């Protein structure tokens, strides 16, 4: 957990994403802003369906054709990647920005050997020969703990178990030592022992290569162990940011509070788990004011009228709640 100073390597500035649906265009990500520094980890938390994957894909410029960036900027080392030409973006893909997709089981091309797929970044960006690139692929596989890598470079994805495939994808994303790595639920398909290995690997990458990591996960324990900062999303908005320890210890947004309360750990069998009542709003009809208010225990009139913006809520912390002060009290 290196504490680096200086300016952030990646700055996301009021990024919005629109999706085209049969019933009209909806905004899935609404003016999201955050930043990460080299060697730092930012965890992106949030209700499932709140737009985390969309944000990540918008940053790397790989949204599905149904969706498109509707506004904002993504600055990598100061340059807005959204304004770059396709060729320039391609040059950044890999060494600059890199992503591990959520859908791990289908993300490898079924008809190519994993060796060829792992070697591809080297062939594209470093123009290595087939042989040399393959050698690098073997090394990568070894790093992510695939047994007998030299013998398995020639194997096809379906010959690997789900967990192994997930590791291959992580290897792929790490191949060119990206400045920023976005990992979208990289360990959901993995058992805890492998998960521990992968996390260790990501940690090494961060310390050795000063990679900035944006980690999307639902596992608060992983966040607690791995991340420096956390950003909590709700219905396309960032509702709270801050250092992990601070946010987890004293959440300054009722949604974060609700999430933390839902942790099943140590709760006895048979008891009802706490959860946030209700469900997030429909993207087609996000209510005015605070999107969370319908489910919020502290909601008041002002919440219905005014959309809360992120405000300073303590040192290095931001919260988008009209009532964050009330939360600090208890």
């Amino acid at each position, binding site marked *: 957990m290196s504490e680096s100073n200086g300016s952030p390597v990646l700055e996301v500035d009021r990024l919005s994403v629109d999706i085209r649906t049969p019933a009209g265009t909806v905004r899935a990500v609404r003016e999201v802003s955050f930043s990460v520094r080299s060697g730092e980890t930012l965890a992106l938390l949030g209700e499932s369906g709140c737009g985390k994957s969309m944000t990540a*894909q918008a940053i790397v410029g790989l949204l*599905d054709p149904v969706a498109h960036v509707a506004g904002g900027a993504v600055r990598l080392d100061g340059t807005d990647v959204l304004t770059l030409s*396709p060729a320039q973006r391609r040059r950044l893909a890999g060494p600059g920005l890199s992503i591990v997709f959520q859908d791990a089981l289908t*993300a490898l*091309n079924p008809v*190519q050997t994993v060796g060829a797929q792992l070697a591809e970044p080297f062939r594209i960006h470093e123009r290595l020969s087939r042989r040399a690139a393959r050698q690098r692929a073997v090394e990568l596989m070894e790093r992510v703990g695939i047994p007998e890598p030299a013998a398995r470079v020639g194997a096809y994805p379906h010959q690997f178990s789900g967990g192994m495939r997930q590791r291959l994808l992580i290897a792929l*994303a790490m191949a060119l030592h990206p400045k920023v790595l976005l990992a979208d639920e990289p360990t959901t398909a993995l058992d805890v022992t492998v998960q521990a290995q992968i996390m260790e690997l990501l940690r090494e990458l961060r310390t050795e290569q000063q990679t900035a990591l944006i980690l999307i996960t639902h596992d608060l324990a992983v966040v607690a162990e791995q991340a420096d900062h956390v950003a909590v999303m709700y219905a396309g908005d960032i509702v709270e940011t801050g250092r992990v320890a601070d946010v987890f210890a004293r959440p300054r947004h009722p949604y974060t509070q609700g999430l933390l309360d839902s942790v099943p750990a140590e709760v006895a069998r048979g008891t009802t788990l706490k959860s946030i009542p209700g469900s997030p709003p429909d993207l087609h009809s996000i209510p005015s004011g605070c999107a969370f208010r319908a489910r919020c225990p502290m909601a008041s009139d002002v919440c219905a009228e005014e959309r809360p913006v992120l405000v300073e809520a303590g040192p290095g912390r931001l919260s988008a709640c009209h009532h964050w002060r009330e939360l600090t009290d208890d």
Partner: protein
Amino acid sequence: MLTFLRRRITSSAIPLVVVILGVFYLARLTGDPSNLYLPLSATPEMRAEFAARHGFDQPLLVQFGDYLAQVFRLDFGESLRTAEPAADAVLRAFPATLQLAGATMILAILGAIVVGSWAAYRPNSLADRVASFTSTTAASMPDFWFAIMGVLVFAVALGWLPTSGTEGAAAWVLPVLTLLIRPFGVLVQVVRGAMVTALSAPYIKVARSKGAGELRVVFGHALRNAAPPALTVAGDLTVGLVNGAVVVETIFGWPGIGKLMITSILQRDFAVLQAAVLVTAITIFALNIIIDACYALLDSRVRQGVTT
């Protein structure tokens, strides 16, 4: 892979016999050839003699038995029409057809891959419209229009190409073009459809996330996944060509198997018909085996399924 081949070859034996038997039997249902081979004023005795000489007076089963025995000795009988060994006629015509079919399919497949991928790259875009529209229009045109207009324009009016014949590379242009349009049009549509699906697969995004250029994405990643349906259809189109391209063969005087087969059906030249069908059937069976092997080469999952 070897076991697969062995199994496929043995399992093709029965269908092959079925084909020969079917052709043998059906051919004899089409009527008495003596009308065609004897002069109009031939006497009944002459007809009887003719039938006896060619064994047509025997019961069908006996005829078939004799025929099979002959075939095992690699004797395919003699043509009624030309009085030459049936095998000669067929083996002469078949290479011509194969060359034509081969050249056509190679061009059609290559062309369809390029145009189909281009169209699929942005479905419903202008490029897609133009590619689909022109290729289907071409493909649904009656082939002899194309052939005859081609001759009139390029051979008679412009004098760039020979009208017909088989001599020289220039003679290939019009026949191949004429044959090409339909497979090309069909394949463009099939490739396009499969590519639309393949290009929206998750691994395409992963490929782009590596910084792969669009050419690499389309041809390196999507194409192989899109290949199987195109391969199936291409196989069937090839079979169509191997079975002969009668119009083209007739118009351009290409001495191929299609015309030979038609002539031998219409002329009740049984020996030639049977030999021709045997040769094309074997080729078609082989072609299908090759296609199945291609599936396996393209996709290791198939390969694996095969060995279980």
